[in-house]
C-alpha cells in the first residue's frame, strides 16, 4: 500500500510536471521557434545580399533562423538557377528571380496559399502596389512569390541645368521653345544635344547631354531604354500570331533616334550597367537620366551626391500623338522572392519570406541607398519616414506613383529572358554602329522566330494571347500609324 502511494504520488508529480511543461510559456523557445535552422537564399548581386543583411539580425531574433546567401552574378544567374531547377533539384530554399521570367520559374515554386492557411501567415497582399501585384505574384493563377524590388523607370533631372537663366536663354534662342524637363522624346533629344559638351552648371567642365545603360548583359539593359520609345510610337512585341513586330516602323524610328543621339551620351555608355550613369547623375555630370527608381535614393544620399535637393523626378518622356502625349515607361524585371518547391525547409523559409515582406522590414530594405531595392508596397510610398528620408523624398515617391498608370511590362511568356537578350544584343550592335537600325532589328526578329520555333509555336502563342489581352486592357495596343505621326 505504501509502495503504491509512493508510486502514485511520483506518477502524479511526473504527469503534473509534464502538463506544466506543455502549457507553461517557453521563455527562450517561443521567441525563436526555429532556433538552429539555416536556410539558403540565392540572389544575383552583391547589393542584394547586402540588402538581406539589413534584416538578418531581426530574422534571427524573431525566428531563430539564419540565412545563408549565395550570390550568382546577374550575367550567369538565370542560366545557373534554371539549369539547376530544370534538372529537378535546387540547393536553395529562398529564391530571388526576375518576375518577367515567371513563366520559366513558376513551376519550380511552392504555392503560398496552402502555407498561409496552415501557418496563419500574413503577406499583406492588399498593401502591394497593384501594378506589381499583377506581374510579380502569380504563376498559372496560384500565388507563388512576393515582390522584393519594385522596378520601374522614372526620369531624373538636375535642376541646376534646367533653371539657370543663361541656359534658358540659350536654349530658347536655339530651339525656339522654353527649356523645361522633357515631356516628349523630341524634347529629350533636343535637351541632350543642347547640354552636351559644355559646363551647363556654370563651371568650365565638359559635361554630357544625358545618361543611359546600354550594356547587353544581365537581362539586357539596352532593350529597356529602347522600348519606352518603341511603345510610345505605337509598338508591340508580337502580333496575335506571334509574328514579331520589333522591326516595324515604330521600332526602327526608336532605334534610329537612339543611334543618332549617341554622341550626346557619356563615353562608355555602350558598356554602362545600371549604376554607372547613376554615379554620373549624382556627381552632376549629366542633367538627364531615365532609369530605375533606386537612383532617387542615391540622389538623396549626401555621402556621394552633389545634387541633394537639386534633382527633379518625373515621368519618362513619351510621344505626342494627335495632340496628346503618350507615356510608356518600362516596368522592368525587378525582383521577386519565392520558396523553392524542392526545399526541405519550406516551413522555415515561408516564415522568413513572410518576415522580410512585412511592411516595416521591407521598408528598411527599400529605403537603404546602397541596396538598390525599390519600394513595392503602397505603405512604402506613403511611409512618413521614407517621405522625409532626404530632401524631396516625397516628390520622388510621388513621381513613382504617378508613373504607375502608364507602365509597359516585358514580354512575360516562356523564354522571356532569351527574347530580351537577343533583342538587347542587336540593339547594341546598332548603337555600336556595326549594323543599321533596320538590319539589327530584322535580325532580332529572325532570332525571335527561332526562339518561338524552339519553344513550340502553339505553346508560345497561347501564352502570348493572354498577355496580349492583358496589355490591351491597360490600353497598350499596336498602332502602325503612330510611328509616322508621333511628335
Amino acid at each position, binding site marked *: 500500500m505504501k509502495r503504491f502511494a509512493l508510486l502514485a504520488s511520483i506518477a502524479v508529480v511526473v504527469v503534473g510536471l509534464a502538463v506544466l511543461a506543455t502549457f507553461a510559456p517557453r521563455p527562450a523557445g517561443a521567441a525563436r521557434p526555429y532556433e538552429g535552422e539555416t536556410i539558403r537564399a540565392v540572389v544575383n548581386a*552583391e*547589393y542584394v*545580399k*547586402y540588402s538581406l543583411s539589413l534584416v538578418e539580425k531581426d530574422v534571427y531574433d524573431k525566428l531563430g533562423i539564419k540565412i545563408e546567401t549565395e550570390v550568382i552574378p546577374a*550575367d550567369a544567374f538565370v542560366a545557373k538557377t534554371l*539549369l539547376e531547377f530544370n534538372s529537378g533539384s535546387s540547393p536553395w530554399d529562398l529564391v530571388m528571380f526576375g518576375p518577367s521570367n515567371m513563366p520559366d520559374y513558376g513551376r519550380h515554386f511552392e504555392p503560398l496559399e496552402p502555407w498561409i492557411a496552415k501557418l496563419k501567415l500574413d503577406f499583406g497582399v492588399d498593401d502591394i502596389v497593384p501594378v506589381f501585384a499583377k506581374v510579380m505574384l502569380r504563376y498559372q493563377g496560384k500565388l507563388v512569390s512576393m515582390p522584393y524590388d519594385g522596378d520601374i523607370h522614372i526620369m531624373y533631372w538636375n535642376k541646376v541645368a534646367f533653371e539657370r537663366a543663361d541656359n534658358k536663354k540659350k536654349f530658347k534662342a536655339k530651339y525656339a521653345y522654353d527649356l523645361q524637363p522633357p515631356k516628349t522624346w523630341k524634347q529629350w533629344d533636343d535637351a541632350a544635344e543642347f547640354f552636351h559638351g559644355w559646363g551647363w552648371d556654370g563651371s568650365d567642365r565638359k559635361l554630357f547631354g544625358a545618361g543611359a545603360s546600354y550594356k547587353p548583359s544581365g537581362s539586357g539593359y539596352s532593350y529597356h531604354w529602347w522600348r519606352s520609345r518603341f511603345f510610345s510610337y505605337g509598338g508591340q512585341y508580337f502580333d496575335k500570331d506571334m509574328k514579331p513586330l520589333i522591326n516595324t516602323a515604330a521600332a526602327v524610328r526608336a532605334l534610329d533616334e537612339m543611334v543618332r543621339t549617341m554622341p550626346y551620351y557619356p563615353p562608355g555608355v555602350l558598356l*554602362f550597367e545600371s549604376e*554607372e550613369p547613376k554615379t554620373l547623375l549624382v556627381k552632376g555630370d549629366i542633367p538627364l537620366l531615365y532609369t530605375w527608381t533606386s537612383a532617387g535614393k542615391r540622389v538623396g544620399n549626401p*555621402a556621394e551626391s552633389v545634387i541633394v535637393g537639386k534633382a527633379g523626378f518625373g515621368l519618362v518622356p513619351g510621344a505626342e500623338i494627335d495632340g496628346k502625349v503618350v507615356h510608356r515607361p518600362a516596368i522592368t524585371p525587378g525582383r521577386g522572392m519565392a520558396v523553392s518547391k524542392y526545399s526541405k525547409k519550406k516551413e522555415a523559409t515561408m516564415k522568413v519570406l513572410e518576415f522580410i515582406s512585412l511592411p516595416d522590414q521591407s521598408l528598411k530594405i527599400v529605403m537603404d541607398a546602397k541596396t538598390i531595392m525599390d519600394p513595392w508596397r503602397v505603405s512604402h510610398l506613403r511611409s512618413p519616414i521614407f517621405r522625409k528620408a532626404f530632401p524631396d523624398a516625397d516628390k520622388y515617391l510621388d513621381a513613382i506613383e504617378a508613373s504607375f498608370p502608364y507602365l509597359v511590362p516585358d514580354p512575360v511568356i516562356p523564354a522571356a529572358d532569351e527574347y530580351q537578350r537577343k533583342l538587347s544584343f542587336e540593339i547594341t550592335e546598332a548603337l555600336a554602329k556595326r549594323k543599321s537600325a533596320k538590319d539589327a532589328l530584322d535580325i532580332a526578329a529572325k532570332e525571335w522566330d527561332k526562339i518561338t520555333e524552339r519553344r513550340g509555336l502553339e505553346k508560345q502563342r497561347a501564352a502570348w494571347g493572354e498577355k496580349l489581352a492583358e496589355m490591351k486592357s491597360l490600353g497598350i495596343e499596336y498602332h502602325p500609324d503612330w510611328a509616322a505621326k508621333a511628335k
Partner: protein
Amino acid sequence: MAIAIERPRIAARRVKRYRVHRALGHVLTYLGLFAALVFFLGPFFWIVTTSLKGNEDFFAFPPVWIPAEPSLAHYVALFTRSSGARYFTNSLVISSLSMVAALVVSLPTAYSIARWRFGGGFLSTLLLVLRMLPAIALIIPIYIMYKMLGLTNSYLGLVIIYTVLYIPFAVWLLVGFLRDFPVEIEEAAMIDGCSRLRALVQVVVPIIAPGMAVVALFAFIATWNEFLFAIVLTGIETKTMMVLVTSFTTGGTDMFYGEASASVVLGVLPAFAVAFMLQRYLVKGLALGGTKG
C-alpha cells in the same frame, strides 16, 4: 715622339668614350626596365591603394593615389558580409587538394615514361594535345555528367577535373626531373630487396622533392586561377575567389568598389608569392601549364 705621346691619349679618350657609352647604356637599360615595371605593376598599385581608400576617395579629383588614412574596412566587409573568408578558404582547399592529387597521380606515370618510355611518342603527343585542348569543349559534357552524378557543387568534382587538367603539365615536368635522376641509386635499392614502388617512394621522391615542389606550386596557382569550370560547377559551399569577384560586377562595380578591389588583391596574392618562389622555373611552368581560360 709626338706620335708616341699622342697614342695613349687617343686610347684614353677611347676608353673614356667607351665608359660613357657603357654608362649611358646602363642608364637606358634601367630606364627601360623601370618603364616596364611601371606598366606591369601599375594596376596592382592602383588596386591595392584603392582597396585601402575610404568611400569618399574613390571619385575624388585630383585622384587620391595614396590614401592619407589607409583603412582595412573593405577587407573586413569582404570577409564578413560578402563571405570572403569562406570563398578564400574554398580556393585554398580546392587548390591544395588538386595540387596533391595531381602529384600523386602524375608521379608514377612520369616514372613509367622516364624509365620505360611507356607509350612512346604517342603518349607525349596525347599529353600535348590535352594541354592545348580548349576547356570550353569539356565544360558542356562535364556539366551534364556531373549533374547526373551529383558532383556539381562538391569539392570532389572540382578536384577531379582540376587534377586531370593538370596531369599533362605535371607529367611533363616530372619526366624531366626523373631523367636527370641516376638510375643506379634506384637499382641499388632494388637489389637490396625493395619493390619498384617502394624504391620510387623511399629513394627517388626524397631526392627529386624540390622538383616536385615546383610542380605542386604551379598546379596550385593554375587551380587558384581557373574560372570557367569554377563558375559553371560551383555552388555556395564551393565557390572560389574567382567567382566571388564576379559578384561585384552586377550593375557595375560602383556600389562596392572597395570590396571589389579588396577581393582582387586577395585573388592575386598567390601569384606574387609563386612568382618569387619559382623564378627559375617560370618559363617551363608557364609554357606547359595551360589552364588559362
